[in-house]
């Protein structure tokens, strides 16, 4: 492929040659000849690598690879396929030259834009000997949650003067997952006046597996014989079984607002980032307490993770939270109407949203409260994010802040535990504020 430099020299040579013939001038023709010799030599014997001498970076490949690159291959190994935000990922790229000729290559391993190279480099100039391989090691820092992919590997070879080059993309991809960062909440509740966010288990007053007696009912086929209450059988003459109250395990429902508006603010500081981190921290805390946790995210669609317990559930929820993408504008009322029949009355509900651009919020939360759900709202303030990023002027900020305060007061009046979560506030502090600890 010709570079701009070679195109410029080629044009100059042709112009000088034609001008030299027209004007019958030997000097111009001679210069043209010399330039052509340079170009020919470079085109025939290109095997050099130099950084961006063609004016284009190696990752802007347009699809012309030479025979020289046919024998180059790459493999990549990651230190982990799952890490947490702000975690570091060690990447080892193995470049192999299957040819018997040494090659000088320019290699660029494509890294997602949000990642930062912490150690080493993903952009390398190297001489790869015949039938040799080399390891390129670098470390990336992953500041934001999400599904990511490393690759492809762009390889370029060119002549010493940067006149002609060949490029190839090696389609080697490695996917990995960045989970939201989690805050340890256990200390928070120990320090607070009330030992737990929801004191003990919430009394859900429903039959289920547990130890406490709940009621008697008639025997049905399939009931365990161990549950038969023989005294009651003796009294009534019918087979009766003991029903037990579900054990002291709460069903915690976490609702995460991932509508398009939740991403208002800078990329690393917005309501969705804060909400997913809070949801991850709360999930870990409640699952650690052997509660049952379910998560619902809504934006383009309503995505839910059914309530369950255990470590596996933590990873399922973290994966869902990692993939939460801002988009759509489904109102909260739609979500509430959909989930209400499936959650146990009285279950604690934690709602994470910036409370913006949704006129149904008040009614939806009122519906929850009317059915005696314990509702906690943590609201990362998009206003603060935008004001800090200097995207809002003082007046606009004051007006919108007032409107937000009014809405928060209104929700508080419904009996919702709500906290205006400011950017610099720790999750534990925000939770303590919401629950009035």
């Amino acid at each position: 492929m010709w570079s701009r430099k070679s195109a410029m020299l080629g044009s100059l040579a042709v112009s000088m040659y034609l001008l030299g013939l027209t004007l019958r001038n030997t000097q111009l023709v001679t210069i043209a000849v010399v330039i052509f010799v340079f170009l020919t030599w470079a085109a025939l014997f290109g095997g050099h690598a130099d950084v961006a001498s063609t004016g284009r970076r190696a990752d802007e490949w347009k699809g012309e690879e030479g025979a020289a690159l046919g024998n180059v291959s790459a493999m990549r190994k990651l230190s982990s396929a799952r890490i947490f935000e702000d975690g570091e990922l060690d990447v080892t790229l193995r470049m192999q030259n299957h040819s018997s000729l040494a090659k000088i290559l320019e290699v660029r391993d494509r890294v997602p834009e949000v990642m930062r190279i912490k150690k080493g480099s993903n952009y390398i100039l190297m001489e790869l000997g015949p039938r040799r391989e080399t390891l390129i090691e670098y470390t990336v820092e992953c500041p934001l949650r999400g599904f990511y992919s490393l690759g492809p590997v762009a390889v370029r070879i060119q002549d010493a003067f940067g006149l002609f080059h060949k490029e190839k993309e090696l389609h080697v991809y490695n996917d990995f997952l960045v989970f939201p960062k989690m805050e340890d909440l256990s200390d928070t509740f120990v320090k607070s006046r009330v030992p737990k966010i929801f004191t003990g288990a919430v009394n859900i007053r429903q039959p289920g597996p547990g130890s406490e007696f709940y009621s008697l009912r008639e025997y049905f086929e399939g009931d365990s014989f161990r549950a038969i209450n023989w005294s009651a059988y003796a009294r009534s003459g019918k087979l009766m079984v003991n029903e037990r109250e579900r054990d002291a395990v709460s069903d915690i429902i976490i609702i995460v607002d991932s509508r398009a508006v939740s991403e208002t603010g800078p990329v690393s500081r917005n309501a969705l980032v804060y909400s997913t981190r809070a949801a991850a921290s709360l999930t870990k805390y409640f699952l650690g307490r052997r509660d049952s946790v379910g998560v619902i995210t809504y934006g383009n669609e309503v995505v839910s993770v059914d309530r369950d317990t255990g470590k596996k559930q933590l990873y399922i929820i973290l994966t869902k939270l990692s993939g939460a993408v801002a988009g759509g504008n489904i109102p909260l009322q739609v979500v509430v109407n959909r989930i209400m029949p499936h959650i146990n009355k009285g279950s604690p509900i934690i709602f994470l949203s910036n409370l913006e651009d949704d006129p149904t919020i008040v009614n939806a939360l009122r519906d929850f409260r009317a059915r005696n759900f314990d509702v906690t709202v943590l609201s990362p303030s998009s206003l603060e994010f935008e004001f800090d990023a200097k995207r809002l002027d003082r007046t606009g900020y004051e007006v919108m802040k007032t409107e937000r305060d009014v809405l928060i007061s209104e929700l508080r009046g419904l009996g919702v535990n709500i906290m205006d979560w400011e950017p610099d506030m720790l999750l534990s502090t925000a939770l303590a504020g919401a629950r009035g600890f």
Partner: protein
Amino acid sequence: MTIKKPSGDTSHLYDGKTVRSAAPSRKKAAGQMGLGSEIPKDAIPEVEIPTFIESLLGGPLVPKMKFLPPDKMVQNLQIGVYGVLIALALLTFIVSPEEGSIWYMMTGSLGFAFIMQMIVIIAATVAGFWGTFQRDARFSIASNLLFILAILRFASSKVTLSNDVFGFSDSPTMLSILVVVYAVLLIMYFELSNGVIRYSMLDTSIRTNEVYVMNPKKIVGKYHRSLILNPILATIMAMIVLNANNILPFIVGIFSEDVAMRMEESVELISVYGVALGTLFVFLVVGGLFALNLPTHLQNYRENKAE
């Protein structure tokens, strides 16, 4: 009566007060904001697009072209450029007499043409020095263009010299060598001044950890070898082309001495048309090589041979 216009900042109205208002509507409030509707600066991702000059002389690995102090390799290249620049300036002055210059064609005045030619050559030299010293691609390309302007000739097929201290005019061979050396120096100047910028970029990128270079000595060594090999090859090839009037009769002489004699004495072959004939031959060969995609075939051959 003068009416005092209220200030836009109303924040003081809310100090220490609880204000009640309607339900929030960000859209409505956003429409009332005084900041305008421009896109916030931090919302636009940085796109590094090289300027035209940057892309001609090497791409912007370091987008703003702010180089760190030059390393030894760059310093050596700079010294090389200075040397070539002085030689090139002298040769340009010698091989481009004012008679055939563009200035003489326009004004018909030898004095004016001489002054203009001197100004162009001096400007090209000064711009070249400054561009290389400052590692500023704009000055380097300006210098390149000025040298091309200086060498543009609008007269005579024969090479004439403005200053013939060594008596080169008497020997056509020496004249040919002089022109070829001049042409090679010009191209080497283009390449070396470009090399200063490119290797400054590379050096800065290495030191800012944007790029890692494994075994830099080999990479630099190959560049150095090319800097020596290419001028030698170019000189040999150009000499062959320029001596077409001697080579062609020699080949023809194998078959017929009479025809060879007539060819040797032919005015056409000695003139620029002889050069053109030789050049045409070279162009045909080069064009043929490219048309046959010889670079790829050659690479394939080398790869297969190595296997």
